[in-house]
């Protein structure tokens, strides 16, 4: 009974760590497979594997680094299993981006910096971000709803994201 309780506690801790890390793990996955829906599917598969392997997780280790390793394998497996579909990216992208990406997601203040920077956007900028990233949001749909050209919407979004990137960098440096 005692050992079972210990295992339960360990498993529960992994679940909690996994839940808290979801946004960062999704960002990591997306960097290696830049398609939102597929990246989410891959992350869901990876979540299963992470829970299955929860016993292997050493509490002394950084959880996100451990999880990134498994996710990386899942993305590689996805590229391999879907090779016939002529995916536009492949393992080259993993080799180029995985390490940098892992460094980025290891910085857990990035998420709160993004929240603060989002608040600093203008009313109009926040609306555009919410429309673009909300369910079913797309540049084409926004152009239709706002009676603007897709090029103009894209330009606005590029500028807003650039503003956010710059703000996040400054916030992290200051803190």
């Amino acid at each position: 009974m005692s050992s079972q309780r210990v295992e339960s506690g360990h498993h529960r801790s992994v679940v909690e760590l996994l839940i808290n890390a979801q946004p960062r793990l999704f960002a990591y996955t997306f960097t290696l497979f830049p398609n939102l829906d597929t990246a989410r599917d891959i992350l869901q598969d990876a979540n299963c594997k992470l829970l299955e392997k929860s016993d292997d997780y050493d509490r002394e280790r950084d959880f996100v680094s451990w999880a990134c390793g498994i996710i990386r394998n899942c993305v590689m497996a996805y590229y391999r299993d879907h090779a016939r579909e002529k995916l536009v990216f492949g393992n080259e992208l993993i080799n180029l981006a995985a390490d940098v990406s892992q460094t980025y997601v290891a910085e857990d203040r990035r998420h709160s910096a993004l929240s603060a920077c989002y608040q600093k956007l203008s009313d109009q900028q926040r609306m555009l971000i919410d429309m673009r990233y909300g369910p079913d949001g797309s540049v084409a749909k926004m152009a239709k709803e706002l009676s603007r050209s897709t090029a103009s919407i894209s330009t606005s979004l590029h500028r807003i994201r650039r503003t956010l990137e710059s703000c996040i960098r400054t916030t992290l440096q200051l803190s």
Partner: protein
Amino acid sequence: MPNTNLSEEDFRSLVNRLLDDPMGGNKQERLSEQLIEAMQANESYREIYVEMTQLHASLSWPRRWSPNQTIPRTEPKEHVEEQPASNGSWRWIVALVLAAMILFAVLTPLALQEKNLSNDSLANSTKALQRKEITQTASDSYASFDPSLVAVAGRTVSVDWTLGSPIETGQTLRRGWIGFASGIVQLDFFSGARLVVRGPAKLELRSSSEVKILSGEAACYVSELGRGFRILTGESEVVDLGTSFGIRVQPGTSPEVHVFEGKVSVKQNASSDTVEVEQKHAVRIDPAKLSDVAFSESQFPNYDILQEEQLDESQVKYERWKNETARLSTDPSLLLHYTFENQKDGDIQVINQAQTRAVGSAGSIIGAQWQPGRWPMKAALAFKNENDRVLAKVEGSYQTLTLMMWARIDAIPGPRSTLLLTEKPKRWVLNGTLSPEVLEEATTRRANSAVQETRWMIDQEAKANLNIALVGSKNNPLAWDQYMTENPVVGPSEWGNWSALAVTYDTVKNQVVHYVNGELVDAQPLKKSLPILLDYLEIGNLSTWENEQEQGVNFRFYGAIDEIIIADRVFTAKEIQEIYEVGKP
């Protein structure tokens, strides 16, 4: 060969295209090659790529896959058959466990710290959630209700819409954004919450129980059923725990919440603790903390203000219409102009206000009841019962005609809803209003007319139809020429709203043109160019013989009418548009 010539800006443009511009085939392939080559050649581009893609993912995650979108909202049913597990469902279990845990963590952060969950309870909650999902899917397959419909627009006053199409009172609203520069809008959410919002405002209707306010002042009234209604303001979240509160969100300042009655819970952001704010208290939601501010209920819009302002606005519109319509009554082409003005409740006839009015052109009211019209101070006639109608007489045959009516259709109960029609004089005998001599003269006039009957109606598919009966064959005495709009003009979504319906008949240009709310919706060439005999008219129904009633012949109009125009010339599209503009409620 690595592409070493790509500037940083060019590289950023490529990544932006990858994120915002889904392409297919060769274009996408070429884009990915360029990105890979650039990142191989320049290490700093890898950082830029990671920074841009991670920002994109971080903005998407909370908005696309928030817990309340993942978790079904129905409570688990205890005795649902368990479904056999499969690989797919195992994946769902993980998703649901994660979603449940996220929700749990968001709603009760302290609960997680207590760490009192066991594997068994986790497994049980997983099963329960799995059952929930199954139950939800099954019940959804029977439900015709569209979950993307979240609210209905109530009263609106002086609204200057800036985002999306203008919203009409009674309009069902889908998930999405609305914005207005000024005015007040009432939104009744299907969860049982009412929001009265004053502009300038921008808000996103996210579900029947959740709204995001980017800017605006709003009062929120929540019924017992609607408890838990949630208002998001960027990062912060306000959840109603009963009754009413006001919220102000203005760019550049922190949102404020003033609790009128009951209490609300407030969270500054997803990771902060929930704080309950009691009635007659107010807080400002700063990024770092909640600060007390002076409570004030009066600064927020409320239902009484909305009602008063709407009444004021109605009065202004009504006066404007009255002035314009008095001028219209002097148009010499008007044969009949029922404005339903200067009438008393209980009057048994409608006065023809047209300057050229002829004797008998007053309408005899049968059954129809007086009630408020487009504005509370204007009168209308309501047609509810099977025999409600108005009888009128306008003599003469006309090569050109305009028929126009302000009508509120509340339902289409049968295959035909009468707007206005001409009838054989014999039917009027049913009403006991024709002497034998008058009947004979009328019958002779009709016998000499090529057009026997004219019926302006709405059919069961809500299409407007001008139906003209010519002399037919021996076996089929009436030959009908139909001029029906291709599309519905007053579909169910319009029921209960006032519409300006019009049709022009023109033997000079040889066409019939239908208008709805000032817009031309259908034009068709005349099949035969013949004058229309008006004479005996019925509005809202047809006088039917007893045997016809027994056979279920039904022409009843169900709704209200508060203005009717018959002119012996063809009104231009501009004139019809102007009448609509000045008369729209």
